């Protein structure tokens, strides 16, 4: 499985999760896990997704999500899971 971590950080507003999830569904990206908090009005979300059935390149997805983030007014990042796994697990 190709796991990717998507992080969304920014000012809280209506429909952030809906918009991100719509994009993921349209691109056959399966959501495995979502965790989310709001600290002092700031929205902080992490999604673990499976990109195995995605037809696009990783870079393309990352760029499109970044653009989507700009439209909503949040910062969206895509990173392969290994960087976190390597750093935090022995």
């Amino acid at each position: 499985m190709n796991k990717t971590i998507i992080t969304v950080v920014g000012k809280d507003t209506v429909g952030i999760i809906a918009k991100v999830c719509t994009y993921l569904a349209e691109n056959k990206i399966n959501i495995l896990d979502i965790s989310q908090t709001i600290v002092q009005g700031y929205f902080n979300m992490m999604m673990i997704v499976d990109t195995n059935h995605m037809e696009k390149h990783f870079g393309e997805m990352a760029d499109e999500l970044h653009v989507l983030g700009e439209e909503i007014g949040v910062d969206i990042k895509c990173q392969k899971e290994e960087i976190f796994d390597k750093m935090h697990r022995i």
Partner: protein
Amino acid sequence: MINLFEVVETNEMITKENLDVRTITLGISLLDCIDSDLNRLNEKIYNKIYNAAKDLVNTGEEISREFGIPIVNKRISVTPIALIGGAACKTTEDFASIAKTLDRVAHEVGVNFIGGYSALVSKGMTPADELLIRSIPLALSNTERVCSSVNLGSTKTGINMDAVRLMGEIVKKTAEYTKEQDSLGCAKLVVFCNAPDDNPFMAGAFHGVTEADKIINVGVSGPGVVKTALSKVRGENFEVLCETIKKTAFKVTRVGQLVAQEASARLGVPFGIVDLSLAPTPAIGDSVADILCEIGLEYAGAPGTTAALALLNDQVKKGGVMASSYVGGLSGAFIPVSEDQGMIDAVEAGALTLEKLEAMTCVCSVGLDMIAIPGDTKDTTISGIIADEMAIGMVNQKTTAVRIIPVIGKGVGETVEFGGLLGYAPIMPVNQFSCDAFVNRGGRIPAPIHSFKN
């Protein structure tokens, strides 16, 4: 499974604390390019490097994008050119033509530096070694991306003082040949004692003859991450301090290990080593000197600096060793002056002198690095500074290096601007007493005794 807290921690390291992979360096052996015909030699060198490295930059950028970690530099190191050019080169111009070829291929494949315009003369110089060394000023003034290094001594062989004397002249001559650019050539020239074969960092990277045909070496960085971690344990004792550095170094190095393995798999080139380094840049918050201040010093250079640096260097290695399957290169904290805003501030405040820097090099990675000195410093004085640093490396069985820049036309109190990662530096005063008679003796300093250690 990874949790939100861990993801946020990693991403804060990257976005707020300047965590990056400093370099992916592709080592390429040129031994199979040797030819007695200079044109053919140059052609073979170009082709071998081009074919080996044409995907290096793209691969680096791809990895950077997928993991969200900046990979600042993509570079190449090659077999010391004195060995490769010996059969074909009869003049310094012949050798400089190889430097031109290296520069051309570096531009073509998009790397920002190519290292290995080098000679290994720790015991003696062949005519080719001497010719290459004498060609350095010409080679560095005619190229943009070529880096040069010369190994002048080792713990096993002692110090080649003939070569030390020659390098004093060559450093000065390189400064003069590049005086229009504030003697920038000297920023791309370093001399070593105990030079490692697998160093990924410039200016001293070369691909040693003990290495495979091609190899991937990675240098990590992250002074800002260590500093931020230490700011959370202010006032705690040394045990807590050391544990914090160790854990942080582990995390930083793991990223290097991941990038090295990915680059190796994607390029089809074996993974060599991760260099466990704390490499600063002139960017604010990316400074080794700032870590020393966080440990408890007013400025780098204050009493206690050598001890603080010794513990920092050791903990970085202890944390890093477990994070990587193979470690090597220079491994340790770098203390370049012009590339570290905290060091520059310390020099400007009068806290840090050349002599204190020399003491600091006894306990950390490398040596006197990116130090600007007055342009009228005598050749023999430069040789004396080099000899001192080589002696520290030889006796302590460690790598030491000298990369100093006599800035032609400038003196103490002025500053010099190199630009980019090389930064800027205040010109530091040099001890004015003579060492002419010492340097001019000629010959070698014998290897030190390896027993009776006290």
